[in-house]
């Protein structure tokens, strides 16, 4: 197994799928000649040519609109949004068109398209460029929302997304591109819609995904020193939301903390804890705690930004509260 970065894993997934299927192509701002603003598509333009790696105007509605149109003709576009914050400029295309076309046309069309977008805060990009609005998109039936927390999952899930006939929003956390991890050699696909136990434990269940996985892992390492064995369930996709491993784990530990980077209100924690209460009420031994971003526009100032984002200590404190 190779130890590569999340960036390399995502890049490899697209490269391999483009080699495998000539219908796969990339479009987005600065994805071609420049190689992507997070350098994910570096070298793609030279190798695959301008036809399959298309630079677009700074017009998100046009990018998503073009992706939808081409997908309806049978191509498999990968549209890159420089950040998820710009998706709001293409909101109608994403939630009203992409998420509903298959349904609205009575199944006459499928939409084999992927929207890749950078999500998350922590890089001092200011309130409008640092959001983690993942749950907004997960609200809409018809759209799959995937967000990996490890390089292995990033590669396998992106390949699954590209091969899927449904529109998939693939969210990459801005501060995870440098994360390294073991990735299997060769072609592999990780099915979308399966939560995964990333760390076994018996005392408390942490439910999380994406950046939350990284801080939860660190918190679990700390808590182990005090004899607390945390089980971490990585959702990996917000829609479909696979609760089975969560419920199974909860029935064992009877205690849960949900960790997400987005705001707490109406968030992943709200959804997951509500489902636990619905499906495992008789196993609840303590109120479920949520760790999330403070309810403010994310500050630019580094200290303030970090204090608004969920930290390892917040996770540790929440776990101790439910124990």
């Amino acid at each position: 197994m190779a130890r590569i970065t999340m960036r390399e894993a995502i890049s490899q997934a697209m490269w391999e799928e483009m080699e495998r299927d000539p219908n796969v192509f990339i479009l987005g701002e600065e994805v071609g000649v420049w190689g992507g603003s997070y350098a994910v598509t570096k070298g793609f333009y030279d190798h695959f040519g301008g036809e399959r790696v298309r630079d677009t105007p700074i017009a998100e509605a046009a990018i998503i609109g073009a992706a939808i149109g081409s997908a309806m003709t049978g191509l498999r576009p990968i549209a890159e949004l420089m950040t998820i914050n710009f998706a709001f400029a293409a909101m109608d295309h994403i939630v009203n068109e992409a998420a509903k076309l298959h349904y609205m046309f009575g199944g006459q069309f499928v939409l084999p398209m992927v929207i890749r977008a950078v999500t998350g805060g922590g890089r001092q990009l200011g309130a409008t460029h640092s959001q983690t609005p993942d749950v907004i998109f997960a609200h809409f039936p018809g759209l799959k929302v995937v967000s990996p927390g490890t390089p292995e999952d990033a590669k396998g899930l992106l390949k699954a997304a590209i091969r899927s006939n449904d529109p998939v929003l693939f969210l990459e956390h801005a501060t995870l591109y440098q994360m390294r991890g073991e990735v299997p050699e060769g072609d592999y696909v990780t099915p979308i819609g399966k939560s995964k136990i990333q760390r076994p434990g018996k005392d408390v269940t942490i439910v999380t995904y994406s950046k939350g996985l990284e801080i939860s892992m660190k918190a679990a390492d700390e808590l182990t020193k005090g004899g607390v064995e945390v089980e971490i369930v990585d959702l990996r996709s917000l829609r479909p939301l696979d609760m089975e491993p969560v419920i199974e784990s909860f029935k064992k530990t009877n205690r849960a903390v949900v960790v997400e980077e987005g705001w707490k209100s109406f968030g992943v924690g709200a959804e997951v804890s509500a489902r636990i209460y619905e499906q495992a009420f008789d196993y609840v031994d303590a109120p479920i705690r949520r760790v999330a971003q403070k309810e403010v526009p994310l500050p630019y100032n580094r200290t303030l930004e970090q204090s608004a984002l969920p930290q390892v200590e917040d996770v540790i404190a929440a776990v101790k509260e439910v124990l």
Partner: protein
Amino acid sequence: MADTINMPKLGFDMAEGTLVRWAKKVGETISKGDVLAEIETDKATVEVESSASGVVRRLLVDEGAVVPVNSPIAIVGTAEEEIPESVNKVSDTQEKTENTPDASADKGQGAKISIQQSAIPNQQPSMLRASPLAKNLARESSLDLSHIQGSGPGGRIVRRDVVQAVSGQISAPSGQAQNLAEHPASLADETVPMSKLRQAIARRMAESKTSIPHFYVSHEYKMDALMGLRKQLNQIVPENEKLSVNDFIVKAAASTLRQFPALNSSLNGNTYLRHGQVNIGIAVSVEGGLLTIVSREADQKPLRQISTEVKAMAARVREGKVKPDDIEGSTFSISNMGMYDVENFAAIINPPEAAILAVGSAREVPVVEDGALKVGWRMKATISVDHRVSDGVEAAKFMQALAVFLEEPLRLVL
């Protein structure tokens, strides 16, 4: 300047006390040291003395209220001075109890927040604070949650409490067989309410036995020298100051504990609190139960002082006039059943202590010494130790070291 009188904290694990009776009314004068109120703790009813002199201006809680430790209960000031309106009667003591963060309630320390005990019988089932899992487990075990103390936040009953209660039920003794010949008239079942003391004993002992991994080490002591020395000493002290065998054992155990700080400690989460003082708790039988009186710094005191203090405390206990200091703060306990012709027994640790010494009768028995059979004084004792705190070898060494004092008792009168 008015003084506030607070609910005293009388023990390591006292979280609250019930104000049983006010001894003074508003407007009455009071001197420092006068009895202001009677409070009931888990262990006993004790009198609260005023820490200030003046006039009782406000009584902040009603009789019967359960009050968290260190919460204000009364204001003592001069007759004229103005007492701020902000100092008002605590009307909802139960809510106050629940909302007061308990310093001893840190997770994992084994400390308990007790639910308001006196309120339990009146509580509606819907008011019962238990997790869904706890309720479910209780249903499966046909267990009545209203009799269980919760250890979760705010006294919530959680899984561990139910599991503990269920295991306690199973291990509870099934009761003595009735001697029908002696009680021919009464064949009907009778429901007898538990006294507060009995309830406290039941709860604390069940908690101790189910949460503390006890192990036991027994030892037989040669008591000839001690019995002889006691006889000699008792010939020279006044009639009312006669030394008991137990006085020697208290002094000997306290002196030995100085060499074994682990056995004079309390488990506190992932740390041990090694007590600086060696305070020996001595189990005293009272009607309907037992209390532990405390011989403070017994390793530092002469035998005669230990003896007179213990006598005085035991007398107060039997008269129901115990003082807080009499029964609080022990760091190691001794249960001596020597006067009941007991060969040997094992005691349950008195939390949060780490060990307890159970002492049998000193008796004349046939012994073998230097290959010859003769008559000698022997006494068996068994130490029960919290295995989280100490191990068998240390306990065995303690028992050996104790022999040095008991078998060469002149060391105890030096």
